[in-house]
């Protein structure tokens, strides 16, 4: 009886994960081998042919490439901004209340839902919007740029928006990490004549390494799965300039009603994410 107690405690979550993750994954794998589902009364088994169609579709590779650029650009900038802001907020040169105020301001972007962020930046980046006003009046560009609807700038623009939206999580976590580094290490280094940059390279970065690795992998998983921001700013366009794996899959399913193909694409995305998850879990284990 006693031995069964823990199973009672974990029963609800086990049932939920079974219903909400395992069964759906089994279903989507099943769907991916059928010619079509949901929209058709009868489905035919087609083996791996959906995977073949997806993997020979040029748009899939455009989407994969865009997802890659978007993810690497976002995560890299999240890290740089996160560590910069966290270091500034951890400075011993400023009184605590000043740092509290700035911390609150720096966290702001994190408190808005993606739908809000999307619409806000559509207004800011409008050809007649305030950002173009500043760029034109300072002479950086001649006329207002259609940031989100020109092929050349759309990917850059959505990546920028995502950078703005996502760096606070890095900042908050790295700040906690910085506060955990002993001041003695820096004291000792500065007695040895180490410059601030050297201290950063040889004390701060190595000390934060485990946190940084976790955050980078987690952020890559999240960013590569970003759907709403793209959908609400560019819808994947213009043409396929900002098409990403999630928007590509969503369109296959809910615009083209090709649920078999969409399922195959969804399974491919799952496999890619599992590769990242594998590194994440291995890293977590190594730290324990």
């Amino acid at each position, binding site marked *: 009886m006693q031995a069964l107690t823990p199973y009672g*405690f*974990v029963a*609800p979550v086990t049932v939920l994960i079974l219903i*909400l993750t395992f069964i759906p994954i089994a279903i989507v794998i099943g769907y991916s081998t059928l010619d079509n589902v949901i929209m058709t009364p009868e489905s035919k088994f087609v083996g791996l042919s959906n995977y073949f169609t997806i993997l020979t579709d040029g748009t899939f590779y455009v989407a994969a490439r865009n997802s890659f650029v978007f993810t690497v650009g976002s995560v890299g900038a999240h890290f740089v901004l996160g560590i910069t802001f966290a270091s500034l907020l951890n400075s011993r040169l400023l009184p605590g209340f000043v740092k509290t105020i700035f911390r609150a301001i720096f966290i702001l972007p994190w408190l808005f839902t993606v739908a809000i962020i999307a619409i806000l930046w559509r*207004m800011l980046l409008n050809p007649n919007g305030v950002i173009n006003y500043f760029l034109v009046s300072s002479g950086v560009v001649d006329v207002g740029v259609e940031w989100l609807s020109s092929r050349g700038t759309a990917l850059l623009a959505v990546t920028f928006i995502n950078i703005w939206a996502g760096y606070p999580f890095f900042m908050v976590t790295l700040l906690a990490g910085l506060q955990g580094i002993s001041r003695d290490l820096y004291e000792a280094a500065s007695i040895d004549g180490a410059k601030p940059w050297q201290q950063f390279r040889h004390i701060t970065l190595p000390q934060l390494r485990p946190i940084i690795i976790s955050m980078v992998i987690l952020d890559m998983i999240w960013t590569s799965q970003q759907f709403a921001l793209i959908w609400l700013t560019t819808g994947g366009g213009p043409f396929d300039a900002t098409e990403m794996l999630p928007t590509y899959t969503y369109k296959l399913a809910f615009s083209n009603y090709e649920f078999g193909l969409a399922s195959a694409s969804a399974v491919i995305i799952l496999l890619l994410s599992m590769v990242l998850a594998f590194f994440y879990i291995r890293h977590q284990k190594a730290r324990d």
Partner: protein
Amino acid sequence: MAKTRRAIDRASRVWVIVGLALGATFAGFPVVWMISSSFKKNSEIFAYPPSLLTDGFSADAYLSILTDPEKLRFFANSYLVALSVTALTLVVAVLAAYAFSRYEFAGRKSLNLIILSVQAVPPITLLIPFFSLIVTLRLYNTYQGLILTYMVFTLPYAIIMMTAYFNTLSKELDEAAKIDGANPLKILTRVILPISVPAMVSVGTYTFMIAWNEYLFALTLTRTTDMRTVPIGIQLLMGQMSYEWNEMMAMSVLGAIPILLLFLFFQRYFIGGLTAGGIKN
């Protein structure tokens, strides 16, 4: 020597302040512009040159949203869904976390690993099977369908954070209660939970945020306007009227208020709990 040190400090302080000011502009300007725009007339949104305070300053955009039952319904739906998800997540997560923290049992490691991995399952992968499951279970376009769905995204993190917190509580508390003859459920509810309020607040805030912000499943698993949540409602404003920017900004401000308030009240718990979960788990 001391003097040069002070001079260096003064110079560095200037750089720190410059950095903070630049960062604050980057982070804060869009938000300031959002609030300013919500008080403008729609015709002034793209006025040239732009200004923060315009002649047409008014709260009309807010009034028009707060007096429209259709839009108020978006908020009611979001509150209902987010609060239900938060309550259910806390119950399920507390039970599981207690087992992970206090018991050794066969399958513990595997279950832990599965919960960690569920965090990485892409929402888009689950979307298609959920769509057909939810339709089959006759939960399409219902609150229950959304609430059930959101639990996948909230549970893993909630369990990881709660387990990390329970691990910091001494096991002697449980032992003492056990000697007094309390059963495990009673130990959890009477001894452990009363001292776990900070962690539950932090997990609850995070859960509420995820549910309040969710977009993809709300878009796909509901159909009628009266079942839509705030994120979808904001999107509907975009298409419905020909870009009433001031109303969209007002709705955005209103939609952000619950999260801002939660954050203001619980800032300390929230950041503490989140980082404990993120760093340790």
